């Protein structure tokens, strides 16, 4: 197996020490940083697909995402020097009143893994905080999550606040009680049923 294939495999299996070792050694050998990034992204893509197909669950994704994150810590400065940077920005957070951020963190990690710049506002984020972050960052997408039906109205308020601020930012929603129909009802651009679909959806939205 080539080193790059091994790197993909180590992400897929959440072997962070192996992943970090390969990235470090390959950089010493002057392997192209872009190729290393592609191998890492491929690993996270496989993780996303397996999660979508119910072959693995949240803990496995978290372990894989940690391997990805630690590898990126080493790779990122080299990518910056080489002028390789994420092309698209996404603002993400759980909506006002909702403290449940495991799903949101999963989406954020997988978006980073797919080489998007993620501005993570954390949890319990007020509509105007989403607006401010979207304005300041110029992000193309604002992604929101809610686990409770009690906090779903905050999604509607956030979508309305972004529109009222005159932003053309696309919006995407997700979380256990959230449906495509609700996205249509509140005028959100997109809906994703799980973290892997969220990555596909962001890819679609930025290329649309």
């Amino acid at each position, binding site marked *: 197996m080539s080193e790059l294939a091994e790197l993909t495999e180590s992400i897929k299996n959440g072997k962070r020490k192996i992943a970090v070792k390969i990235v470090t050694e390959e950089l010493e050998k002057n392997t192209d940083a872009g190729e290393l990034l592609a191998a890492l992204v491929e690993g996270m893509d496989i993780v996303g697909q397996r999660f979508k197909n119910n072959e693995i669950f949240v*803990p496995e994704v978290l*372990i894989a995402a*940690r391997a990805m994150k630690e590898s990126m810590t080493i790779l990122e400065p080299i990518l910056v020097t080489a002028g390789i940077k994420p092309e698209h920005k996404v603002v993400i957070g759980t909506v006002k009143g909702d403290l449940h*951020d495991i*799903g949101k963190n999963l989406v954020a990690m997988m978006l980073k893994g797919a080489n998007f710049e993620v501005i993570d506002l954390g949890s319990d984020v007020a509509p105007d905080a989403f607006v401010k972050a979207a304005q300041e960052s110029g992000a193309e997408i604002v992604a929101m999550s809610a686990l409770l*039906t009690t906090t*779903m109205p905050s999604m509607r308020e956030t979508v309305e606040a972004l529109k009222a601020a005159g932003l053309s930012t696309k919006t995407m929603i997700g979380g*256990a009680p959230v*449906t495509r129909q609700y996205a249509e009802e509140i005028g959100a651009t997109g809906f994703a*049923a799980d973290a892997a679909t969220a990555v596909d959806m962001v890819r679609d939205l930025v290329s649309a």
Partner: protein
Amino acid sequence: MDGNSSRTVGVIACGVLERELGALARFVEPAPVCVVLEQGLHNEPEKLRCELQRAIFAMEAEHPDVTDIALLYGICSRGAEGVQADRCRMALPRAHDCITLLLGCRQLYKEYVAQHPGTYWYSPGWIDTGFQPGPGRYKKKHQEYLEQFDEEDAEYLMEIEQGWMQKYNRAAYVDVGVTGDPEPDIAFTKQCAEWLGWDMDRLHGDAKLMQDLISGNWDDERYLVLQPGEWPKFVDDDRIVIAATGEFVPEKSSRSKGFSCQ
């Protein structure tokens, strides 16, 4: 509803309210037919919908004397959305979840959570599940991870688990005063709160909402009353649920990826 004794209520309840139902049903005449479903189905809303629908049809088929079905549920992650009866009238409280049923009032729930957004709820039924945040849950979850991952990864997953708990700051214990001596449950909640570094609050709930529901005393303000063929639809305003007709088309949620209702 007129409280006419020729009507018999069939109750379908979540296991988390089983103790409350057992105590309250004794006061209802004629005695309601009670069916209790497993607690925790809301974690997979499609599964809850499927089990609930199955229980409604079974109630209608097996108990011809039942004229009215009371669902001791909230909309529960939208798992109660879309269910319908063929023959009976049916009602469910205008509630997001069981905390409204325990507090007895949805406005009170809304106000409490707005005032204390970091609240995690404890009740007799929730404590029975053995999975409320606290030292016991920590131990169980840690053991579960150790069976699947190496020690370092298990530690990391526990850090994440504790991470979300740190977003909460309050354990609120609520009962409706019918489930026996509350002291052991209060002591348990206190112990969990101390272990987690949270404040603890003890709330006295109100059984009236549940009592009236299972007695068939349904008004439109507190309950959604459905005619045969109608189903509850979630709305994101203070009504919480409205009646809908026609085909209910379920959407797959992230929580029920592998589930299909056979």
